[in-house]
């Protein structure tokens, strides 16, 4: 029984061997307790990603990420979420030139996007990003976190009216920090109505979400400031 449960665990992770899958489907078909087991694993995933920044970080992730992602270039183009986020307007890759990101060549991007490794990583990461962006858009309390960062060096002050947003002139946004990087290497961003959502990966392996009326240049300034 334990062996079957281990296979269910591996199946949940998409790590089952081809030779094992049909047999397991048969077992799951016939055994409701085993289906429940699969459901419990899914439930655990929900729990583990609930305020996931409360779980202790893994120390050597950053070093490893550098190695594994060294040949993969992530961009707004690498996105299956385009099919999901129908209310969002995706900004073309060409806009990334404004980010001064390290773009070697169109071919490199194309190769990276089409590589099997990139696609696998993207599939794994997309669900997390989808979850996250949908919560940003739909759950008003999601961005009201206790994360407070001093951004006065880039001209933003905490809005005294609400105590959680940041303002500078006409720019106003909310900020949230995740203790995971969603597989992101570069800034990824979406336009939603008149607001922007930026996912900004930091050097320490975390990701900052910025949501509101904020320009891309300001988002970059904030990212630079947080990386210092």
């Amino acid at each position, binding site marked *: 029984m334990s062996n079957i449960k281990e296979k269910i665990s591996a199946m949940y992770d*998409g*790590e089952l061997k081809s030779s094992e899958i049909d047999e397991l489907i048969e077992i799951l078909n016939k055994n409701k307790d085993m289906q*429940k087991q699969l459901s*419990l694993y899914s*439930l655990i*995933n929900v729990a583990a990603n609930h305020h996931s920044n409360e779980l202790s970080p893994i120390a050597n992730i950053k070093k490893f990420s550098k190695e594994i992602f060294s040949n993969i270039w992530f961009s707004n183009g690498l996105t299956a979420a385009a099919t*999901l986020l129908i209310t969002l307007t995706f900004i073309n890759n060409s806009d990334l030139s404004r980010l001064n990101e390290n773009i070697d060549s169109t071919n490199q991007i194309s190769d990276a996007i089409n590589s099997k490794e990139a696609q696998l990583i993207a599939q794994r990461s997309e669900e997390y990003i*989808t*979850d996250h962006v949908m919560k940003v858009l739909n759950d008003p309390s999601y961005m009201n976190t206790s994360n407070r960062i001093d951004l006065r060096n880039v001209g933003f002050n905490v809005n005294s009216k609400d105590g959680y947003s940041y303002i500078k002139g006409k720019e106003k946004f909310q900020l949230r920090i995740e203790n995971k990087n969603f597989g992101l290497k570069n800034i990824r961003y979406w336009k939603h109505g008149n607001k922007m959502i930026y996912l900004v990966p930091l050097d320490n392996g975390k990701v900052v979400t910025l949501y509101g009326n904020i320009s891309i240049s300001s988002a970059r300034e904030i990212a630079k400031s947080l990386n210092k």
Partner: protein
Amino acid sequence: MKKNSHDIDSELIKKAKQGNHGAFNILMSKYYPRVYATIFSFIKSKEDSEDLSQQTFIKVWQQLDSFRGDSAFFTWVYRIAINLAKNFVTSSGFKKQKINTSIEDTEIDISSFNDIESAVIHNESLEEINGYIDTLPESLKTAFVLREVEGKSYEDIAKITQTPIGTVRSRIFRARESIVEFIKKEIITNE
């Protein structure tokens, strides 16, 4: 050869499209808690979240033939769930709409899901589970967090932890089993 999650889902979807209810039940077992949690995070009502989760999977079942596989299965399911949740919030006609589609018509078994999810998915329990995860033995916790929180593959985790893939698979399983036991003992029985 190994199959990734997308391949396994595709295989289950193919079987479900051919009328295999068991394959669909497996997909539902895999994704129901996440759908429920997503809806609950917006609606904040156990009863309505249960109703909407059921509606989501009834719609998924009914519209399965239209799923072309352009996006990941969960992305598609998620979109249906979000649309239903938004309709619920904005439309007072939702309650009437519910009556039009009954679970019995679908020949899929949703009834067994709600008890656990509604017991577990609220902030207090989720935080208790998170607290328990932090107490797992370091080797289990590392493998588990790398997989569940960081989304790493077994191969990547094996490289990071410098252990064989079989050990990674076993550690993740043991971590999950330990958490399942905790949920059964400390959370479900206390409800």
